[in-house]
């Protein structure tokens, strides 16, 4: 019992000294654990599209060819694509936007996404992209090129299939899948943690420290961000934006839009390849050598949906490294993309 008493006293003393000099904070207060969104911080660049305030910026001559950068997720943000900003110095108008509920864009309840039902992909994502293009387009004849990565490539493909005449060029980097069954297979393959792994432990162990209700965005986004920082399977090791990084470091996951989108996908099994056979312009299809979940055979399977394409394998980088490694971007990706656009 003497030993037990010592343990108690140690715990008590430690508890008192641990807290007595600290200030309390709330985990769901905007800005504490995750950055504020554009509706909470008016200093952030934003546009109003389709009933939502979106975090967005554009660079380059306003009247020149638009390149719309479409980030992954759903629920990631455009920060890792900011190396594409250098295309503005080559005469293009480069547009970035965080999709509704993702990055620093405005949040919406999960029930709102689910209420869109079978037309969700149209109403949430295609209409939003159409609104972004309309916002930045200065004339009817201005050319539009879509540049999407991962989920963004799926979205760009689906949009192009729906509005083939509105798209001048299409660049897709590792769309996970276009048919829903392929999407599910790719997600499973790219996140197949081993039972004993540190990655799985990191994802599950935190649930006893923090729990968030269905629409507690700050908590859910924070936890999602901890899980999504790196992923060895797809070869993501962290970004290097060089001078392309903005003055603020503020990356934020959109946990609710991610979860809602996946549930909607399971319910309605969307086909992102619908109509893409009507797009006769050459598509630039890119995949990476370091993404173990995207071997040559998978690239060939997914690329088969595009009737006219050029396939390019990015050597030495992973899923996001095609865009977020400044050296690779400068030496390989940017020249490849410019060459593609000039070939159209």
């Amino acid at each position, binding site marked *: 019992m003497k030993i037990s008493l010592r343990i108690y006293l140690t715990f008590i003393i430690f508890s008192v000294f641990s807290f007595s000099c600290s200030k309390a904070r709330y*985990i769901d207060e905007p800005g504490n654990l995750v950055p504020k969104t554009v509706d909470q911080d008016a200093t952030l660049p934003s546009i109003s599209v389709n009933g939502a305030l979106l975090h967005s910026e554009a660079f380059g001559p306003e009247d020149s060819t638009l390149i719309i950068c479409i980030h992954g997720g759903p629920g990631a943000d455009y920060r890792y694509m900011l190396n594409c900003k250098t295309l503005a110095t080559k005469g293009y108008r480069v547009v970035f936007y965080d999709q509704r509920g993702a990055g620093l864009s405005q949040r919406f309840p999960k029930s709102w996404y689910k209420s869109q039902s079978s037309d969700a992909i149209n109403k949430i994502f295609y209409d939003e992209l159409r609104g972004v293009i309309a916002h930045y387009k200065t004339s009817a004849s201005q050319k539009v090129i879509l540049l999407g990565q991962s989920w963004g490539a799926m979205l760009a493909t689906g949009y192009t299939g729906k509005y083939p005449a509105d798209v001048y060029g299409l660049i897709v980097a590792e769309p996970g899948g276009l048919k829903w069954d392929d999407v599910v297979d790719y997600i499973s393959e790219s996140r197949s943690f081993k039972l004993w792994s540190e990655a799985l432990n990191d994802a*599950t162990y935190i649930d006893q420290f923090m729990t968030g209700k269905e629409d507690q965005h700050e908590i859910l986004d924070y936890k999602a961000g901890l899980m999504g920082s790196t992923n060895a399977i797809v070869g993501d090791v962290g970004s290097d934006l060089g001078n392309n990084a903005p003055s603020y470091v503020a990356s934020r996951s959109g946990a609710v839009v991610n979860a809602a989108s996946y549930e909607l996908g399971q319910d309605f099994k969307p086909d992102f390849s619908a109509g893409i056979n009507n797009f006769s312009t050459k598509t630039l299809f890119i995949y990476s050598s370091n993404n173990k979940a995207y071997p040559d055979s998978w690239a060939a399977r997914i690329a088969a949906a595009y009737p006219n394409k050029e396939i390019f394998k990015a050597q030495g980088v992973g899923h996001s490294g095609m865009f977020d490694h400044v050296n690779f971007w400068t030496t390989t990706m940017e020249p490849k993309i410019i060459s593609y656009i000039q070939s159209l």
Partner: protein
Amino acid sequence: MKVITLKSIITIIAFSFFQNKMYAQAVNWENTSKQNKNLLHANIGAEYGVTAGLGYHHLIPVKRFPLWIGGEFSIPAGNELADDFKVRLGTQIRIAGLNHFQFSARVQGIARRYHNQSVTLFNFGSDFAGTLGYYRKHWFLGAEAGFDKAIVIHFKHSDWYKKNIYDNVQDGWYEPATGGNFYYGLQGSYSIKKVDITIKAGKILQQDFKSQPLLPFYGQLGINFRF
């Protein structure tokens, strides 16, 4: 923001006083004796990850309300075994019994740590549970339900996080309570001489009664050695 309150400190101290035993160990109340007042136990299982634990408990033979006091240390699987852990100290007391049916309660104080590339978390929490079971000398089967509460939590983010994710993240102690999970399930054991083989399994639900943790169940296979 407010200065952390005296209430929090008192809460933690109160839990500290209750820390006579707290472990997710299954105890056969029909199989306790004054000759075997000590219990060593080891377990492996799943509880917010794949985990392994070691513990010790001591029997206080209060006449109608015998109680076990002690603690347990557990770690999850992973490449870095020492970066995450959980310490639980507390007591488990038999409250009522009728024939072979008995009801016991468990009160535990918890200290736990989480570390990854982005952040190191340290949390003080509590765990309250009740078990109703049918106990025989060599075996028992029971149902348990409990609530695991994360009361206060300390965040310390890495330089990598501040450079790549969010440079203005606020480190320090966070309150009020940052999380809580209900759990319920079955447990049982079979005894051979001084050794008990124990097993428990159940489901975990977040405190909003709607959401689930990423691993929404728990399970544990353990061995007790009485001496």
